[in-house]
């Protein structure tokens, strides 16, 4: 698409003028004409019913077990282990850590989301090479990488806990605010932002309900079920993958794995969902 950089300067100058306006709650767009066929259909209810059946025995548990084995038994070249990994609650503490990230980590001077922190620890203590992990960050039908299994284990250790992402450190608050901006930022050939599909109530793409991630009770849906066992192909996918694929469908370029952008976006969405109950690794279409 044609980009017009010269216009950006002008548009930036408009920021001030619009700031006041933007603070007003946006007028609600008129509701789309209701479709003749059932809107929230019997189909979604049928899906939900059997989704529950599938979640009762979720193959994600197989990956949790694999991750637990790595966490507890694997040793790095110097004999170090994940027992030294601080996920924010002290060295080796896994219980409840997943629902308390992203958070500020003083040792690296960064806000990190869960996946970023886990990978950081696997590199630091177990001798994994970051460039290897970046070669295949996400699972595919042939392989679910070790770090994905470890994240699945860590997530499982926060099953049935409330999300409690801290916002005390100034950087945690700033990261939230930046994430909020990224969420609303429209660009690319389709003019899409995250908010285009996930900023309003009661919308669907095809038969899939779109949660309004600006609201706490719906923002949990960006979090719930991740990491998720993907039915098609039978492997685990994480929130980092979900963000990556959202940007693909948003027609954006590819976000770097474990980048600040993704951490910021996850911070915004997770803080919005604070107080909601996380049910552990899930199952995804």
């Amino acid at each position, binding site marked *: 698409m044609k980009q*017009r950089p010269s216009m950006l300067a002008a548009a930036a100058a408009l920021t001030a003028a619009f700031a006041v306006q933007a603070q007003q709650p946006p007028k609600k767009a008129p509701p789309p004409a209701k*479709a003749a066929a059932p809107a929230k259909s019997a189909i979604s209810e049928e899906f939900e019913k059997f989704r529950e059946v599938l979640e009762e025995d979720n193959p994600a548990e197989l990956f949790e077990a694999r991750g637990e084995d790595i966490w507890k038994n694997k040793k790095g070249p110097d004999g170090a282990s994940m027992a030294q990994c601080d996920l924010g609650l002290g060295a080796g503490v896994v219980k409840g850590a997943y629902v308390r990230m992203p958070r500020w980590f003083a040792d690296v001077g960064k806000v990190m989301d869960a996946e970023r922190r886990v990978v950081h620890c696997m590199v630091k203590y177990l001798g994994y090479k970051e460039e290897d992990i970046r070669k295949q960050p996400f699972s595919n039908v042939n392989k679910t990488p070790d770090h994905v299994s470890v994240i699945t284990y860590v997530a499982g250790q926060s099953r049935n806990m409330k999300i409690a992402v801290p916002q005390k450190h100034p950087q945690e608050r700033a990261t939230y605010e930046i994430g909020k901006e990224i969420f609303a930022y*429209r660009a690319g050939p389709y003019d899409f932002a995250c908010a285009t599909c996930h900023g309003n109530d009661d919308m669907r793409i*095809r038969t899939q309900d779109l949660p309004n991630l600006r609201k706490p009770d719906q923002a949990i849906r960006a979090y719930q079920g991740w990491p998720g066992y993907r039915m098609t192909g039978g492997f685990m996918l994480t929130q980092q993958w979900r963000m990556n694929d959202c940007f693909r469908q948003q027609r954006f*370029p590819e976000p770097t794995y474990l*980048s600040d952008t993704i951490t910021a976006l996850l911070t915004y969405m997770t803080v919005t969902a604070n107080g909601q109950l996380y049910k552990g690794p899930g199952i995804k279409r």
Partner: protein
Amino acid sequence: MNKILFFLAASLAGTVALADGDYRAEAIAMMKHDFKTKGIATADRVNEDGVQAVCNRSGDHPPKTIAERLEKDQLESIRYPADGKLMGDWKAGEKLAQSGRGMTWSDKAGVPGGGNCYNCHQIGPAETSFGTVGPSLYQFGKLRGSGPDMQKYVYGRIWNAKAFNLCSAMPRFGHVQALTEAQIKDLVALLLDPQSPVNSK
């Protein structure tokens, strides 16, 4: 267009930028750093164009005067078919409407994309798997007519939805060359052709 924007900026500037402007600047800098070209999805896609920039800075609700000016500008950029024919083949249109492909980094260069229409709209009566981000278009031609003016409106709206509603959620399919002239004609036919199932009883 630049001139218009500068004029608007000058007339509206003066208010002190709030803190959220700083976060936006940080967010944009961060994205420019973190997004990389993959396949056909080039890194420069994270740069805003003018319409996007205005919508981004106004929570999709720009002041009316600005919206009207920019809509007019977008409207003038629409290129209608040289032969004056706006209706194609509704059957080809239905196929296009079904396809959600196009413009992602997993799409190949040079392969025609789809219209993505059912992702957001109800259209034909046979397809029950449709989205509700946009309004239902079922019976569109029957309810709104299918004369030359309506054909021109629908063609233009698919070409560049922003010409009619500056911060519409709908992509500017013709403007960004996501759909060709012939493809848009087929979609116009899907909505307006009396033979199209969209307009069946």
